[in-house]
């Protein structure tokens, strides 16, 4: 008994060391990302503006894409594969994606790769830290805000790493993600830190595992969607300014940063796909929570503040999906709704736990 307790405290200690180490490596990744952006700014990108002017002249000339079956690198496939002409609908700008933070600068690209390697390393340490914490408390690592925060950012980085592994176009997420993960971990270790402990009986149910793990995954992935949405808003404004040649043009700094991001259309689609893909999971989170509440408190819905905010967040995302399907609401307006919806998620987590007392406020 006592031996086990000592082992647990040992584990908790190891976990803390790992989390701090992860933070150190994330910091290095952050620096490498900064280097990537700074070095990249030396390279002349200048592609977006040209593309915009070109597309202004010719209207929506069809874009030709070679569809490859074997995912090889550009143009090396010898498969006999028909070319499919794709074209955007009315009003699309047909702007190509920016080249990424490094631009065409070799040094920038190198530090970008270093940043990614460091991020993957930090993620591994981070995950080990979360695992050690779970072992030390002998349950899932999300019984309080400290554990929730560390797990949350771990899943967000994990999703990003998976995206990289699948060769999705997500490299542009690197800097904002690493920055906020550092922020989140910093908050976790300084403000929310809780000694490892076990759960009070009310929290001890397998629906908790299902409900909370889904909530964490949804939130972490929705966070990536929110970052994309925010960047979309900036990039969209930038492209709009460029397109309106006689209006005010974007400043040098904005240009330097924004021209390297993917096009507004790409960012918007990325955000939509993420939000749409997570929405069913978030719905399931809500349902699992209701089932758990039914088992624990005798009613599946009782307008407890946490439940209310889960509901608000859910409806806000439904709003966003509706907006996407409603002409006149797509684009920026829908993007604002997506940000509002994610703000609701954040409030549900931080705001409700800290400022509103209800049955859920276990932190």
């Amino acid at each position: 008994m006592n031996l086990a307790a000592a082992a647990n405290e040992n584990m908790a200690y190891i976990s803390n060391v790992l989390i701090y180490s992860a933070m150190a490596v994330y910091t290095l990744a952050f620096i490498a990302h900064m280097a990537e952006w700074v070095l990249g700014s030396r390279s002349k990108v200048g592609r977006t503006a040209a593309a915009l002017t070109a597309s202004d002249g010719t209207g929506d000339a069809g874009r030709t894409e070679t569809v490859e079956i074997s995912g090889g690198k550009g143009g090396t496939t010898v498969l006999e594969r028909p070319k499919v002409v794709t074209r955007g609908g009315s009003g699309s700008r047909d702007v190509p994606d920016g080249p990424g933070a490094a631009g065409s600068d070799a040094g920038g690209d190198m530090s970008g790769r270093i940043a990614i390697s460091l991020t993957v390393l930090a993620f591994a340490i981070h995950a080990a830290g979360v695992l050690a914490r779970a072992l030390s408390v002998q349950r899932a690592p999300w019984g309080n805000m400290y554990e929730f925060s560390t797990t949350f950012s771990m899943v967000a980085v994990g999703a990003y790493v998976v995206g990289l592994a699948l060769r999705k176009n997500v490299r542009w997420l690197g800097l904002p993600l690493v920055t906020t993960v550092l922020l989140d971990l910093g908050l976790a270790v300084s403000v929310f830190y809780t000694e490892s402990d076990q759960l009070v009986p009310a929290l001890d149910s397998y629906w908790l595992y299902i409900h909370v793990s889904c909530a964490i995954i949804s939130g972490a992935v929705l966070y990536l969607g929110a970052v994309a949405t925010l960047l979309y808003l900036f990039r969209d404004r930038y492209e709009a300014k460029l397109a309106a040649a006689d209006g005010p043009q974007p400043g040098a700094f904005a240009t330097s940063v924004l021209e390297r991001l993917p096009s507004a259309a790409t960012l918007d689609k990325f955000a939509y796909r993420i939000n749409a893909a997570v929405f069913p999971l978030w719905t399931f989170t809500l349902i699992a929570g209701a089932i758990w509440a039914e088992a624990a408190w005798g009613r599946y819905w009782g307008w407890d503040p946490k439940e209310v905010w889960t509901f608000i967040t859910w409806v806000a995302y439904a709003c966003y999906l509706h907006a996407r399907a409603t002409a006149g609401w797509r684009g920026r307006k829908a993007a604002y709704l997506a940000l509002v919806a994610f703000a609701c998620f954040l409030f549900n987590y931080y705001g409700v736990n800290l400022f509103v007392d209800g049955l859920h406020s276990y932190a």
Partner: protein
Amino acid sequence: MSETGTNTEIDPSATESAEGRAEGPDTEPPGGSAAARLSTAPADSINVPALGLLGWARWSWRQLTSMRVALILLFLLSLGAIPGSLIPQSGVSPMKVEEFRQAHQTLAPIYDRLGLFHVYSSVWYSAIYILLFVSLIGCIVPRGWQLTRQLRGRPPAAPRRLGRLPAYTSWRTGAAPEEVLGAAHRLLGRSRFRTHRSGDAVAAEKGYLREVGNLLFHIALIVILVAFAVGQLWKSEGGKLVVEGDGFSNTLIQYDEFSSGTLFDSDGLAPFGFALDGFDATFERTGPQKGTPRTFRARATYWEGASGEERKTVIEVNKPLEVAGNKVYLVGHGYAPVVTVRDGQGDIAYQGPTPFLPQGDTGFTSVGVIKVPDYRDKEGKKNQLGFQGRFLPTFALDEVRGPHSSFPALDYPVLAINAYRGDLGIDSGVPQSVYQLETEKMKQFKDAEGEPFRKFLRPGESAELPNGAGSIEFEGVKTWATFQVSHQPANGLALVGAVAALAGLAGSLFIQRRRVWVRASRGADGETLVELAGLGRSESPKLPEELADLAVALRAEAPVSGAAGEPAAEEGSEAEADDPATKHPDPEPEEAAGPDNQGNDPADPVEGARA
């Protein structure tokens, strides 16, 4: 238009809603031309007010069931839910509402008038969700019809210029058009498209489950709402404290407190009962979390019906007992010291366990009151006794806190009591709390020094009251537990609705609805031009790939003539660029289909189905 900037999609459902749900002003004007806007705008916002009452009614209905209003109502639904999470709600915590009223004398009446203490049943919030659900029904019904029509109809015929569609490919082959179309027909059929061949083209469509899923989801929302309403109207919920060894049977008078929905009939209480055999609680013994609860288990025996068979069970915090359509939840627990009070004559005036209420400290200090209404003093005169007790499960003493309890378990239980005599006030008819002693008409016993009589008793010990007034013996401790018995009809229905909603949502968001057309026409050179085009929602990048896959498969039967593998797509687009008809900005495919094809818009499944 450039504001939105992102709709690189030609969205079948957008056009669909323009037709089916009359929200023309919302629909993006094709190409942004003012003429196009006018010509497609339905009557709603312009003419209808002149049509009088009926016209207005129809106009309002159309507005209400439009996607834009649904969006606004949804937004209001979430906005309106906010105050209920920040202001105490009478349905959730009436005590906090009371506190709030005391603290905010001016604000409270305003809140009252706005229904802010019961947001979710207030008039304005109800209005929002009722309107939303009316809108929802008004949206589901036409969409349901549309879908059945589409399923009975055929995939819409090919637009005239396939090259204008979002995904397009073409090549020349030596095979005859008939052969190509036949092969395409078979191929698309094998890929589980619904196909239809007419003229020089095969039309195919797939992914109807998206629409089905969407309808299922929205219908499921209504099912959930109905289930919730039924649950609220017919529910019953009661609380009962049961001391170890005692029982409960499900009748109204046995409850400590009881509430029910407006339509609940108390004769409908299901006959069942249970007895508490014992309660086990364990607590963390070491570490910084010392004293926090680890397990709570109520061992119980229950029976169903008037003379049902008895069964043993264990009720835990997340594991209610389900019996006779009711659920019995464990909600609290505590200690009930067992005492025997003897009067001045030496007769037993009171005996039994008395539940004490925990005070919320980590040591589980509990307080309670023992009332002895039938008591005779030394002279045999009738009087009443009252004891105030403090129960300390693990007695400890230190200088700062004095006597207190250091741990919630029964490690060293001590009962501390004060004693009073006089009128308990329970005969006055005014209801009294069993946990409080009204001491106004009572006198406290004093010891020999004139100090208030106070005793600390260990189990088995007893204390003599001063002047031979009797004695009190602390025999031992029993546990008690509080249970919530609730009956909530339509829980199953809500679950069914939730599962259906989830399934529908998955279908609606993950299934891609798309159309593919294949046209084969003999050119001047005697070769056959094969064209493939696809239309879908561009949120998915898969359409071009799917089209390419189809093209690869079709090329097996209609091989590319000339230089093998030479993509003809570029030719196609170049040919198109030369075509004067495509020079002006009319990127919507239905426009490109030409005037003779007006009522037969391929992008509009309804129209297609009608054709």
